[in-house]
């Protein structure tokens, strides 16, 4: 186990190095810079050049790259070009908890609701609860979440005036963003759960359990669920990484001060340090969550052996 962890650790560092290098050069290859005008030209060229000089953008690319690697080795992700006086570390430490909180609630809800829908579907196969939950799941998978969130905004805020539209200042504010984030995953988990549950229910050991006279609810929740849940765990890794680091669309529509929006606005602003900093952060996050999932596997499914 310890050997495995050490091996994974070094592989991760290599992955991060490659990720940083590719992002760095790709980002600089894109035309336009942080101080290029966007809407209207206003700032004269000479003044612009002075600003670029201040942020070291006049240095050769190789030098900038080495400087960046040096500062990142010390845990410093640099200062935002667009938002003066804000460091990328600050940006993440402020925005990540907000994104993570909304994302975590969404994950928990997606897991509970999705699994319940899937199980119901599987055990009532071919009957109306199956149809109903599968209709919900199909809608959830086929409607993109930006359509869903705008639709919900219109329905619950503009028409019904039931819920607030922006920010996170009370529990009511969480309902729409969480629903927007959870809807897709619920659908996906429900379908995953249904098919794996159906497969497990056909196994011999379920037949054995039933033959021994084990009550049906115990068959389902104790014997079948344990094995049926494995595909969900696989899905959980990327899901946690995606939801905890914030969604651009949901954060934009409900004005949530998370980091999801910064990913995209960083790119359109050519805010180099923000793009790189968030990539590094997200990279580390995905590596860690995948790693945890691998470990979880071994715990849940004794058949899986982690290679030494």
């Amino acid at each position, binding site marked *: 186990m310890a050997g495995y962890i050490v091996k994974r650790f070094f592989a991760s560092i290599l992955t991060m190095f490659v990720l940083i290098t590719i992002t760095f050069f790709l980002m600089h290859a894109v035309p336009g810079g942080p101080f290029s005008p966007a809407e209207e030209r206003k700032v004269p060229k000479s003044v612009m050049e002075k600003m670029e000089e201040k942020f070291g953008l006049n240095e050769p690319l190789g030098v900038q790259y080495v400087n960046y690697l040096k500062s990142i080795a010390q845990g410093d992700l640099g200062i935002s070009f667009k938002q*003066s006086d804000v460091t990328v570390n600050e940006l993440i430490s402020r925005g990540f908890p907000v994104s993570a909180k909304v994302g975590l609630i969404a994950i928990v809800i997606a897991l509970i609701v999705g699994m319940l829908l899937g199980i119901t579907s599987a055990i009532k196969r071919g009957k109306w609860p199956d149809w109903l939950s599968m209709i919900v799941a199909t809608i959830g998978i086929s409607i993109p979440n930006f359509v869903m969130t705008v639709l919900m905004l219109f329905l619950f805020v503009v028409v019904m005036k039931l819920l607030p*539209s922006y920010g996170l200042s009370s529990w009511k504010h969480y309902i729409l963003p969480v629903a927007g984030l959870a809807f897709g995953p619920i659908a996906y988990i429900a379908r995953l759960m249904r098919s794996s549950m159906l497969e497990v229910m056909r196994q011999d050991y379920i037949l054995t359990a039933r033959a021994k006279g084990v009550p049906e609810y115990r068959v389902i929740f104790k014997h079948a669920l344990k094995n049926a849940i494995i595909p969900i765990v696989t899905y959980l890794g990327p899901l946690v990484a995606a939801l905890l680091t914030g969604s651009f669309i949901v954060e934009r529509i409900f004005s949530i001060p998370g980091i999801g929006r910064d990913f995209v606005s960083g790119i359109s602003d050519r805010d180099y340090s923000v793009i790189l900093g968030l990539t590094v952060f997200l990279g580390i996050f995905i590596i860690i969550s995948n790693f945890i999932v691998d470990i979880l596997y071994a715990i849940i499914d004794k058949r899986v052996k982690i290679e030494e």
Partner: protein
Amino acid sequence: MKKKMGLVLAALLAITSVTAGCSSSSSSGTTAPQGQQQAAPQATAEKPAVEQKIIYALSKEPEEMDPTLNVYARSSIVLQNLFRGLYKIDESGKKPVPSLAESYELDSTGTKYTFKLNKNAKWSDGKPVTAQDFEYSWKRVLNPDVASGAAFYLYYLKNGKAYNEKKASADEVGVKAVDESTLEVTLESPTPYFLELLCVTAYYPVRKDAVEKEGWTKSPETYLTTGPFVLSELKPKEKYVLKKNPNYLEADKVKLDTLEIVFIESSEAELAAYTNDEIQVSDNMTPEGMKRFENTPEFFSVPRIGMQYFDFNASKKPFDDAKVRKAFSMAINREQIIKSIVQSVEKPAFGFVPYGIPDGVQKDKEYRDVAGNMFTENVDEAKKLLAEAGYPDGQGIPEITMIVMASQSDKDIAQALQSMWKQNLGVNVNIETFESKVYWDEIENGSFNIASDGWTGDYPDPMTNLDIFESVNASDDIRWSNPEYDRLLDENRKISDQAKRMENYAKAEKILADEMPLMPLRFYEDQFLAKPNVKGVLKNYIGHTIFEYAHVE
């Protein structure tokens, strides 16, 4: 390779920004213009029981909270509520009146101003505002080591540009505190609109001991202001809470206690928040919001001193010929584009100086109204001009490329123009789109024939909208120059006789109309919504929303 990468990126961005446009309908609005109200009407009666608090939304957090570094429009809105300089724009939103200054004297050369500061002018911590504060701030803007993007605003000061470019020392800059309350300002040349310039945030004071604290703009404790409000709470990306500044010079006139500025990025969400009574003032308007509120007393549309126009590349065929340029400009229908494509109540542009700028002689009238239209639309005349240029019915005209930014509204406008030119002149025009960050490089490269462009001025004098077409400034966009045009503008920088100046501006505009190096499309207006019980919200001529005179009934 570089260009391709940009395109891929732009496409990706376009996909992600679908969210912004996905609920906006494309049907055409046919409502009558609301006219130009300057501000919500003043209240007659007041009920003291109402909480004097307004929640106002901006699309994002301001980029820059230090006025000496600021060049951003959004940041200016926040700063214009927090700071005051020597002069401010009055309640009508049109002309400068003394603020922290009491009076000024101008010498006979027209280049030396001596400002007397108001003795009661204080910082938000109660200390007096001194002439030294102004000297420090202005030199900070120009200091090459500070590398402020706003430096060019102060190039009017004697040696301002030279100091910024390290060709002169700080002591040679034309600003000097004679004593605590006397500020001597020397300009490069007489600038009849200097008082208006003083209302730009770059001319606002910051205090040395505050600025020297690390990250002074990031906490309400260290953030010192001179205007109607102070910063009382700062929640990044969420909201800024502004409270009335009791030390403001005119604090007795400020009725609002709290101004909460929240950040709502998508305009659909902002409209939802407004209809849901979560915010009281909204100015990030969707075409839907416009349609819905256009005919209500909650809707305001105010001219901004800016215009959307199209550059003709005068260095390349066929637009090296003024006749072709004129033909293209006369063969379109501006009214139709504004009404059905832009879906706004703005005015079509038949001149080069927008509304919002008062005439120099008849000060209560708009320059635009006094000068009148400079040209008209006329398809028959356009056809004739094109034939005279050697392209009857568009035959034999070289391939024409029009470049626009990759926003939905710009693309829609481009397509409308394309079909108008096809229909009226028989000319085919190719449209190419570019992401905003690379768009201006594309113009500079000069590989276009027609390019979408726009400009908002800084001060209400025609100069701010006309100097961008002078030879020195036009070499990398329209690539057009006219010695007489340059001379007229140059003369207007040196004289202060307003009648003569207005005459020169009209002449200069006439040259533009005859030569048509650019095609004006529409004069910008800023739209906003304010709840019926919110009065006195002001939009000035640059589009800044000012709450100094606002209150809740």
